[in-house]
């Protein structure tokens, strides 16, 4: 080390200057991610009187109330329905699209551009767009149905159909849509050496055989990632609802995050915090299931090669 290094550095090493480099990141991340996590937990056990501005200890009251709250149960139900439809459809759709986009044909660049554009569309814009396209009175979708001789549908004015349309909108655009899954799958597909698939087909493997023996194992890790990612995205659904139905008709499309949003607007912090902890408990359970599943798979895999 050159002799003119400062005294501080000679005594403490690089620790002080390293912390200076980290300062902005640490302040933001500790202040707005770590502190809030524990604060939320505290809030979920408190009850705030909005008029007297006093806070009292509520124990598990907030949680107990939520379990009996019809609206919250509805929100959980809608979230589960949405996620259960959205996750498998987006992943299968994305896989199919990626396999198509991996073909070596003319204009593949144009096809890829067209297919990838939906990823950058904001979910709000997508929600607004779908609510106009599927308007029961003047929507272009009913116009198309009319052309092929199908009676007009209520779409967003019917609770069940509204939820299904949200799934459709989620599949079509945004940072967790079919196109997003396709981007991820395509990147993984292109990590497979061409020689491998070519060798398989020269050996006489049919398309399905090649897929099963070469492609599917190579895609397994990203599929697990996508399952997890898409599930988290499904449970955190908010912007689509915000842009299209705002929870309606009735409360038919209120999902959990929308429920929390409403409780913040009503200053019911305790209820909102408890609701978010219930969601996180659900997420943690799913994460644990994945981890255990992955653990089991990798053990079985190791057993097979050994």
């Amino acid at each position, binding site marked *: 080390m050159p002799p003119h290094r400062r005294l501080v550095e000679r005594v403490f090493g690089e620790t002080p200057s390293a912390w200076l480099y980290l300062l902005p990141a640490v302040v933001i991340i500790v202040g707005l991610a770590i502190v809030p996590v524990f604060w939320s937990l505290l809030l979920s056990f408190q009850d705030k009187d909005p008029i007297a501005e006093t806070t009292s200890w509520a124990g598990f009251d907030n949680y107990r109330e939520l379990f009996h709250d019809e609206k919250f149960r509805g929100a959980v139900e809608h979230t589960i329905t949405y996620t259960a439809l959205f996750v498998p459809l987006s992943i299968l759709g994305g896989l199919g699209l990626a396999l198509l986009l991996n073909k070596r044909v003319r204009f593949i660049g144009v096809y890829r551009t067209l297919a990838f554009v939906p990823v950058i569309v904001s979910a709000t814009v997508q929600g607004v767009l779908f609510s106009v*396209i599927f308007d029961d009175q003047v929507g272009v979708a009913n116009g198309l149905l009319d052309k092929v001789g199908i009676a007009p549908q209520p779409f967003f004015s019917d609770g069940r159909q509204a939820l299904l349309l949200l799934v459709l909108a989620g599949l079509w655009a945004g940072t967790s849509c079919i196109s997003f899954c396709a981007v991820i799958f395509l990147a993984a597909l292109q990590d*497979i050496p061409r020689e491998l698939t070519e060798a398989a087909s020269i050996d006489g493997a049919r398309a399905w055989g090649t897929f099963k023996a070469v492609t599917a194992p190579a895609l397994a890790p990203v599929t697990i990632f996508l399952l997890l990612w898409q599930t988290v995205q499904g449970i955190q659904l908010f912007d689509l609802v915000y842009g299209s139905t705002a929870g309606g008709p009735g409360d038919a499309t209120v999902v959990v995050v929308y429920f929390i949003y409403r409780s913040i607007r009503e200053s019911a912090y305790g209820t909102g915090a408890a609701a978010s902890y219930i*969601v996180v408990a659900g997420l943690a359970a799913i994460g644990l299931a994945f981890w255990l599943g992955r653990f089991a798979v990798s053990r079985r895999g190791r057993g097979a090669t050994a």
Partner: protein
Amino acid sequence: MSAVASRRRGREQLDSPARPVAAGPVKKGWRWLPFDPWHLALAPATLLLAAPLLWMLLASFMSAQQLYKFPPTIIPGSLHLDGYRFLFEDTEISTWFLNSLIVSSVCVVANVLFCSMAGYAFARMRFRGSGITLGIMLATMVIPFQLTLIPTFIIFEHLGMIDTLWSLIVPSLVTPFGVFLLRQFFLSLPPELEEAAYMDGCSRWKILWTIVLPLARPALATVAVVTFLLTWNDVSWPAIAISSEAHNTLPLGVASFRSRSEQNPSAIMAANVIATLPVLLAFLAAQKTFVRSIASGAVKG
């Protein structure tokens, strides 16, 4: 070694259009087609995906009459500017646009700067607490945002920043994703260059600016793209933090505008077009970087 090489090659193919190969093993029965039969699947699938957006563009140029008759117009006979005129004359869309632009650009610059600093410290500096700090930072990446929502709201309320653009900027100044991505990139650079400069008495700060960052351009571009995309499109936090019209960002403005004016679908579509256009242009200009950035988080994760 060869596996790594072919991996690299594969990654490059992702964005560059694949060279059309003379004639692959075309299936029997499809030989009569003058083009590859895969076009029959590719063209409808990709057009279907892009269709709502194309219609959005078309509808923004339709008149209310065209949109309001039954059965509704799909392809208009004539184009109109009513929607855009209404938008710019009767709403604050230019303010919303400016707000979005301010928030996104401040966040992009801040992320590139702060994530580089933190990433560099983690990659190259030896200091007490580095392991545990990095671990905690990584752990925050998986915290669902609704968990932090309410306390963050209370914090900003106490700081007097709620319903100002500051409340949108401050939480996105640094992202753990960016810190981690840049740390990984800095680790992949050969340390010899920096060591030579260090021996010559160059300060860490100068090494970072003159040697490391110029080499890290691709990774910095990824951080910039992801930050821009996320901040420009985000609405969950802004919907909670912002309540006055004048501080709306574009997506907020578009959503509030829609609920207020059911009667003007072409203006709603025009607002949608304006909200999407900047990201779309950026995407078309730098598709490679976008696709790589979107894939980068996942394939390694």
